[in-house]
């Protein structure tokens, strides 16, 4: 299990303060709901956590060695290898569903971590089975529905085995059936001990068993109590 401590995360854009010196810790057994009004900085924070957006200030330390604080330039690659970010409307590359899920597995062609074709095939098929979309393996990505795209994007993140998956408004514009399937997929991630942060406006009616709740308001973040 991974424990991280994040300190002094600030982000300003065009003189507007989006995030104000946030301090919090994360653990890969966390299942976090992140709420806040539109423009409160939820997506910004997720992008910073996943190493996609450079903050004004940032310090990261691991729980094993909490005294050593690493700045952004040192932490960026670690964050990119630890967190996987999913956009509100996921971007699927041109090609088939299989190609998309295999994308992250083909990124180490020239290193010792390179996977054999049969291993990639095996992992992608396992991911397709998890999201129950084996029958769409050869379908072009542009021919999928919104809900299917979201589930393919989740499976694509799952196969690369990140410690955390960050989902930005995954249920926006989804019909009820797609929403139920996506809940099921996310709960599956949790069973695989992947830390999850979800930004959402929806109440979810208890389908997702969050164990922490962060709320962003005017650049500050508070942790809310989650009743049993």
């Amino acid at each position, binding site marked *: 299990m991974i424990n991280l401590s994040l300190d002094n995360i600030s982000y300003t854009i065009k003189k507007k303060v989006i995030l104000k010196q946030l301090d919090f810790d994360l653990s890969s057994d966390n299942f976090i709901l992140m709420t806040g009004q539109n423009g409160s900085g939820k997506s910004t924070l997720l992008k910073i956590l996943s190493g996609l957006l450079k903050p004004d200030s940032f310090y990261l330390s691991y729980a094993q060695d909490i005294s050593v604080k690493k700045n952004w330039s040192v932490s960026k690659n670690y964050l*990119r290898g630890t967190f996987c970010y999913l956009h509100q409307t996921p971007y699927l590359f041109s090609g088939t569903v299989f190609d998309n899920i295999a994308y992250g597995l083909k990124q180490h062609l020239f290193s010792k971590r390179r996977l054999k074709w049969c291993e990639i095939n095996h992992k992608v098929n396992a991911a397709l089975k998890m999201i129950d979309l084996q029958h769409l393996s050869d379908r072009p990505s542009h021919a999928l529905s919104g809900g299917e795209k979201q589930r393919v994007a989740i499976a694509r993140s799952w196969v690369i085995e990140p410690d955390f998956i960050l989902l930005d408004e995954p249920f926006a514009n989804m019909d009820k059936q797609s929403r139920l399937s996506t809940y099921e997929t996310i709960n599956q991630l949790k069973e695989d001990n992947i830390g999850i942060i979800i930004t959402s406006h929806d109440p979810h009616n208890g389908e997702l068993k969050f164990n922490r709740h962060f709320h962003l308001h005017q650049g500050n973040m508070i942790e809310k109590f989650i009743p049993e």
Partner: protein
Amino acid sequence: MDDLSTATSQAFVLLLTGNAELWEIIAISFSVSFRAILFSAPLAILIAFFLASFQFPMRRFLIALFNTAMSIPAVVVGLTLYLLLSRAGPLGDLKLLFTQEAMILGQMLLCFPLLVALSYAALQSLDRRAWETAITLGAHPIRAFFSVLKEAHFGLMAAVIAGFGRIIAEVGSSMMIGGNILHHTRNIPTAIALETSKGSFAQGIALGIVLLIMALALNLFLSYIQGRGELSL
């Protein structure tokens, strides 16, 4: 009218009977322009990627500069290179004037701004999520760059084909710095200009037909790779 039809039929005879001189001119033309596009496209696409993806000082100025340079006349490029490469010029020692290498240089300068501007348009219209998705899925920035190029390949192909179209048909620069020397630097446009000035239209028309067929073939190829439209009225 009779002259035109006679010249056209003679042009087809020249083409179909494999006139060596004619086909040599065609070969030189394609060889020079292919090399010019091959050497300039990678750097142009890289610059377009940086212009489309990152904020840095002078970015807007550079975009305006490349857009302006798209319309630079070929003769101005030819004249500038002529002055630079001529014996008295600063690059005279290279002895490049009236060589295919000089023609390639001229054509590279001509197509480069067009390649940058059109590639920039293709890459800028691409969703930023493509880059972020590649990075968050563990791609090294260089691989993410190639993934983004793959996503924009229709637009980039169109840019390369437009660049090729610009240089294969340009006459000003090739004439001035190539010198229109038979067997060496005579390409399709300079040959057409020469034959027309001599009143020998058949070869000019034959070469014009080759240019038109090539343009049609390239556009058919582009249409093919772009696939069929999916909207229905």
